[in-house]
């Protein structure tokens, strides 16, 4: 279990699987959070109601992917789970607060006469959750101080300019996802508004991604070498997908902006994973050192291989049932 040893095939597989779960979470809950963030920039009350209605109850299973991810990370890489959550105690609490605000705003707004307060909770909760996730990711990339497998830094370490940059980028990225989702889910004025918001968000994402890459590259020359080396995919694919987002938005397409945005997130994910490898938490915690023993990983793998397709299938069924443009008065539906 020395940090120098290479990770087993199973550990690598789990690194990939957790990446996949994270990607599923980010793409699905990303648009929920993005719609919430955009609702803060929407004046008209009924339009905000429609934005919430566009998410139906799907925000709930979408958010649940993070719970699945959390449990699987806990099982597959226990020390990493312990370090990440204790190092980022405060962003974690803020994230959970954001989730609580968003969750009750959905459930309670159906039961009340005055909706505006709960809709504010929806927007505020979404923004808080997105910011907290951004600071968590930024703090993770800045490398928390780990001694003997335990976090040894201060509870405020995550609050640094680099992490703030990452957080701003993630908020814009979620806003882009949310905007692209609203383009395919709504019509009329709201769609026009969402198209504009998505375009603005895409430019901001481009700027933030560039700034993050430069800041990280300057601090870690070995990363720059990795990125500039062959096959140059790091330099080519993310800008290409973001270009696709902007072009499809300008052409007024319905589905293409959302799909291009997913492509951009997928590219960013692969770049992130490849940059981190062989670490799970840079600089000290490697995949090999953090992995649970192989026989446990096997048990979990069997479980996940059976459950993942089932989960995807019934989630897809929900989307199929509630497919189509969201209409006025669609919430609460009963």
């Amino acid at each position, binding site marked *: 279990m020395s940090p120098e040893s290479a990770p087993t095939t199973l550990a690598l597989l789990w690194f990939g699987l957790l990446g996949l779960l994270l990607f599923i979470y980010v793409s699905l809950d990303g648009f929920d959070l993005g719609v919430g963030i955009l609702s803060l920039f929407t004046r008209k009350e009924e339009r905000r109601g429609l934005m919430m209605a566009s998410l139906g109850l799907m925000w709930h299973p979408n958010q649940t992917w993070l719970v699945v991810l959390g449990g699987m990370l806990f099982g*597959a*890489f226990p*020390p990493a789970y312990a*370090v990440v959550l204790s190092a980022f105690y405060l962003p974690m609490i803020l994230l959970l607060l954001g989730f609580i605000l968003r969750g009750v705003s959905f459930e309670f707004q159906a039961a009340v006469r005055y909706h505006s307060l709960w809709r504010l909770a929806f927007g505020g909760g979404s923004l808080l959750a997105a910011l907290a996730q951004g600071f968590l990711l930024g703090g993770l990339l800045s490398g928390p101080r780990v001694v003997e497998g335990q976090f040894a830094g201060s509870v405020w370490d995550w609050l640094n300019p680099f992490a703030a940059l990452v957080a701003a980028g993630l908020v814009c990225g979620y806003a882009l996802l949310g905007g692209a989702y609203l383009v395919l889910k709504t019509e009329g004025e709201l769609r026009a508004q969402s198209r504009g918001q998505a375009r603005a968000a895409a430019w901001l994402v481009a700027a933030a991604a560039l700034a993050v890459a430069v800041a990280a590259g300057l601090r870690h020359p070995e990363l720059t070498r990795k990125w500039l080396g062959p096959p140059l995919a790091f330099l080519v694919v993310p800008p290409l997908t973001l270009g696709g987002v902007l072009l499809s938005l300008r052409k007024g397409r319905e589905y293409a902006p959302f799909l291009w945005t997913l492509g951009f997130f997928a590219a960013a994910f692969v770049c992130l994973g490849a940059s981190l490898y062989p670490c799970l938490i840079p600089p000290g915690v490697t995949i090999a050192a953090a992995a649970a023993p192989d026989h446990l990983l096997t048990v979990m793998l069997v*479980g996940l291989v059976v459950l993942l397709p089932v*989960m995807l299938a019934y989630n897809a069924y*929900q989307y199929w049932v509630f497919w189509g443009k969201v209409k006025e008065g669609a919430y609460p539906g009963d």
Partner: protein
Amino acid sequence: MPLLADAVTLARLQFALTTMFHIVWTLLSIGLSLFLVAVEGLWLKTGDRDYYRHARFWGRLLILNVALGVVSGIPLEFQFGTNWSRFAAATGGFFGSILGFEGAMAFMLEAAFLGLMVFGWGRVPRGVHFFATCMVALGASLSAFWIMVANAWMQTPAGGVMAGGRFVVTDYLAAVMNPDMFLAVNHMWLAAVETTLFVVGGLSAWYLLRGRQVEMFLKSFKVVLLAAVLVAPLQVFLGDASGRAVARYQPAKVAAIESHWHTNPPGEGAPWKLLAWPNFARQDNDWTFLTIPSGLSLLLTHSRAGRVQGLRDFPREDQPPVALPFYAFRVMIAVGFALFFLMLWTLWAWRKGALTLDGLPRQRRLLQAWVAAVPLGYLAVETGWITREVGRQPWIIYGLMRTREAASPLPGATVAASLITYLVLYSLLFLAFLIFARRLLLKGPDLDEAPPGRRPSPEGP
């Protein structure tokens, strides 16, 4: 205050607060979703509109409960990492995989099908809707199963050894099927069902007392009563079995629950005390009230002179707190029997023909007792939980890892801040729930709601 400077104590308080808040909502999430399966099934079978109205009416209460259960449940999963990182690192491989399975098998199932259950009326065929309701119920119960597997493993760890500060699993199945698992899962699950029965029954009785939709609520009252005939005695039986299992696997806990300090000498039974006041410094009781000779031996070993280890047999640093489990346990038992006798009383009244439209007005006392019983199930679960978890101390994994060694190295002020945040937020959420639930109950069921047809209409509802 030295107590507030101690991060571990604060982390324990935070875990207790967040768990005891969360558990409130899970009870109805489990029980009410099963009740909904029953009434929706009855509607499909008999075509009786009242059952359809029940499905819609109680469904709204379920949504409120699930909402709070979900928002308060997620912090719990992550709390193992944020506040108990040394526990997480030591046990993660096994413990984490259980939470992972819970998420993937249960939590997701409930979350996804809830949307279909709430919004799906009239959009999907009746059969598909019924399937969704069943999946919500299955998800909630499976969730309870996995969580209790994890919790039971902390009570009676099995399937591996502690080596180098880490729990190494040698036999995964044995760890899942640990000695406490079967009783823990069933006792908790049945507690959820029983609490729900007395909530639904009590609220139905409230409508009956006010003479609102009497015919409709008499139906739910009878469904509940029939289920309670099975559940209430079974829970008393499971409680007794649990007590004897605890005596076998966690002797210090049972000694604390009974404030039992001295092991009884051979040939002489250990007494049972109704009330007592434990004194840790003297390692004895200051006073006792109403003692039954040999009572404890009979309860725990089912024999007159069965040996019951006293707390003095354990080193002081291995003794759990005594007063809290002792009194919490007695409250739980009292509630268990109260609900059992309420069920018997109602059954007797039914036999005398009281549960008819004409007989009901003469049963005000009985109905009032049911209304009063609404909070009792919650009380029993919370006190039972306190008994179980405080009685496990000073261990986080019984006999293997101490709670003190498991906490994250965090400054006390940080934990205090999050604890206060949870306290304020949860109080507000609880208040909001009471307001919304009250509004929902005062409004009552919607009698104009037309049941959807067999096939979904193209327009939706």
